[in-house]
């Protein structure tokens, strides 16, 4: 009797499992009229998604901007608009994976397994052209006429053209600027943001006295905040031109920058070692720290304290090597697409790319999503004024920048980037000296 009962229960569970699986499949296939956003890390197979039952060309888009962020919401609204405008002809299905480092690895795995998403974005790295060299990406060069090309920043198209093929469309390219908490600065007796790095050190001491950790930094994942700081210091020592030309990072200026970074690593939170972006960002948003170097997307997370926040020009060493107010920009995050067999689908992808990089879309993404794009932005005085306390500050500081460099980590090889978190931790914990830090990073970069 027990055996029969056990068998019955097992069968019941099996039926339940199968039912759940089949209903899940149904839900994914029942695409509503608007863009379908799946937050699970689902793989969309470009080969199996040509046309829907209504005859519309189905395009599977994979990106990392979740709709609970301002930029994700702005992008989502544009995709919805595109789907409505092209109802019955083209339909964009969206899958979101908000964990950007994991997302990037997933995209690589998808390319490797011939399940490249129809459209996706990624961090462009001239030292990691594995995606471009895979031969699985669509070439936009025949569609890139003068009119479309004129939409983008100078040199962006050239940068993304690899071996004569334009496999990416310029999209996001934002400056990582210094945000500081004016109220905490005032409490510490600092009246204005320091113009020199020595002034920053003095400010850090004063902030420490009132029990505030001066900098939000982290070492896990891509250690981006810490690398932004390193990039600013390195540019202050070496000048933007030297760093922008690439080459070896084992230079006296980089060693000096590592030494200065080591000093500043004493002015961060106790959880910086091992923390990731969200921990460090929340430390700033919850006023545990007084400074952070982040992109415009941070603005959306500072709603409650936005009136306390200022955006500062970068300090220098006052020696004229860099122009005051220079900026560090993050890597280009362009769009790319899977190579298509169907010309109609290829044209549909191009149509969407033109739509998303149009003047109107660029304006909407910047004003609603606080996203800065490679595509040119034209704002009236009034639009700038109405863009919000922080966004208008950001635009002002960013546009006043006389020169800029790309974050140093974006020009490192994948192997060097993988070694960077543990090397930064070693530097912070004095396991390696600044000289050893640069030497080991340089060795990984070769």
């Amino acid at each position, binding site marked *: 009797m027990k055996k029969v009962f056990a068998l019955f229960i097992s069968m019941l569970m099996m039926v339940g499992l199968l039912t759940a699986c089949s209903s899940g499949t149904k839900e994914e296939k029942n695409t509503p009229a608007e863009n379908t956003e799946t937050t699970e890390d689902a793989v969309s197979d470009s080969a199996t998604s040509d046309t829907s039952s209504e005859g519309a060309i189905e395009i599977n888009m994979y990106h990392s901007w979740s709709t609970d962020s301002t930029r994700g919401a702005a992008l989502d609204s544009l995709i919805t608009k595109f789907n409505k405008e092209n109802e019955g002809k083209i339909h964009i299905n969206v899958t979101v994976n908000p964990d950007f480092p994991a997302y990037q*690895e997933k995209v690589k795995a998808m390319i490797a397994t011939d399940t490249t998403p129809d459209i996706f974005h990624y961090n462009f790295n001239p030292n990691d052209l*594995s995606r471009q060299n895979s031969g699985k990406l669509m070439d936009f060069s025949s569609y890139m006429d003068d009119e479309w090309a004129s939409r983008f920043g100078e040199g962006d198209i050239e940068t993304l053209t690899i071996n004569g093929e334009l496999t990416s469309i310029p999209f996001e390219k934002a400056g990582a600027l210094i945000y500081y908490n004016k109220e905490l600065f005032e409490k510490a007796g600092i009246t204005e943001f320091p113009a020199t790095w020595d002034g920053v050190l003095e400010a850090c001491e004063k902030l420490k006295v009132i029990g505030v950790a001066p900098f939000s930094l982290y070492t*896990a994942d891509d250690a981006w905040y810490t690398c932004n700081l390193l990039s600013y210091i390195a540019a202050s020592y070496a000048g933007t031109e030297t760093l922008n030309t690439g080459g070896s990072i084992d230079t006296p200026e980089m060693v000096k920058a590592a030494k200065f970074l080591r000093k500043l690593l004493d002015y961060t*939170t*106790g*959880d910086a070692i*091992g923390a990731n972006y969200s921990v460090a960002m929340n430390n700033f948003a919850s006023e545990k720290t007084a400074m952070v170097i982040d992109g415009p997307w941070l603005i959306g997370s500072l709603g409650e304290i936005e009136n306390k926040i200022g955006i500062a020009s970068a300090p220098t060493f006052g020696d004229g090597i860099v122009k005051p107010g220079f900026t560090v920009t993050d890597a280009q995050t362009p769009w790319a697409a899977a190579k298509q067999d169907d010309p109609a689908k290829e044209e549909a992808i191009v149509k969407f790319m033109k739509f998303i990089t149009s003047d109107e879309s660029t304006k909407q993404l910047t004003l609603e999503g606080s996203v800065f794009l490679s595509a040119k932005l034209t704002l009236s005085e009034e639009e700038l004024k109405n863009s919000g306390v922080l966004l208008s500050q950001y635009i002002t500081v960013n546009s006043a920048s006389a020169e800029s460099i790309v974050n140093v980590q974006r020009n490192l090889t994948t192997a060097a*980037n993988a070694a960077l*978190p543990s090397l930064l931790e070693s530097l*912070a914990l004095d396991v390696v000296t600044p000289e050893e830090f640069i030497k080991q990073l340089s060795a990984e970069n070769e």
Partner: protein
Amino acid sequence: MKKRQYSIYLAPAIILTLVFYIFPLLYLCYVSLFQWDGLGPMKFVSTQNFQKVLADRVFQSAFKNTLIWILSALFLHIPLGIVLALMLSRKPKGWKLMRIMYFVPNVISTTAIAFLWYFIFHVDVGLINNVLKAVGLGNLAHPWLNSLDTALISSQIPFILYVGLTMVIFLTQLSTIPESLYEAAEVDGANGLKRDFYISLPLMKPAIATNILLNTAFCLRNFEYPFLMTGGGPANKTTNLSLYIYRQMINANKYGVSMAAGVITVIMGFCIMYSVSLIGKERKGKTYD
């Protein structure tokens, strides 16, 4: 039974082993001889990946940390399991409830446990540091998971403490020991500790061998605790072989190097398992002769 019948019964197991174990293992060995970023073409580099791996300080650290995990299993986790099993075998009041309580963590996912302990040890919001501050011992608060001195042992604590499965295996073995042996020992005047040392422990040797095998295997493939609690840091202080393999493949895109490290881990695992099984067999023979 005819040979043909044997073959029919064995065929599914052999096919599954070939497809899901032998073939991937051979493929692992094959890829370890190539330089490959996972996307482009593979370039044959002979044993260069193995040389790179063996010369890599991070691999050496990962190897050492994996050995420390195995030692913690042998000298902390398993002895704790033995002590608890011996205590519960005496059936004190509430022993059934305690047995369940000790076993419960084994049915919770390692991920959940790792996160739980991450927040216990967290430098700011962690239970330990906040309790220390609350009782006036704030000066003892410490970045447990971020410090070079305490990160490794802190990430091992959940594994060392959660001995439910190990304990149950020991309890099962203890239940097979005839009561008459204990009665005879009592007549001879043996007290509780002597009973444990001269009767229980010698007869628990097969279970000890089993637990050594199971826990060594766990330590070799352990991934969640270092990945979720410390991310392998600080400064690779808690990186183990599984995490090293993952990092080389996923973060550094060095598939060949990752596979070479995998091959070394498989060989290391095989050697340890074989040694343990030999010791187990030898002791088993001695016990029951």
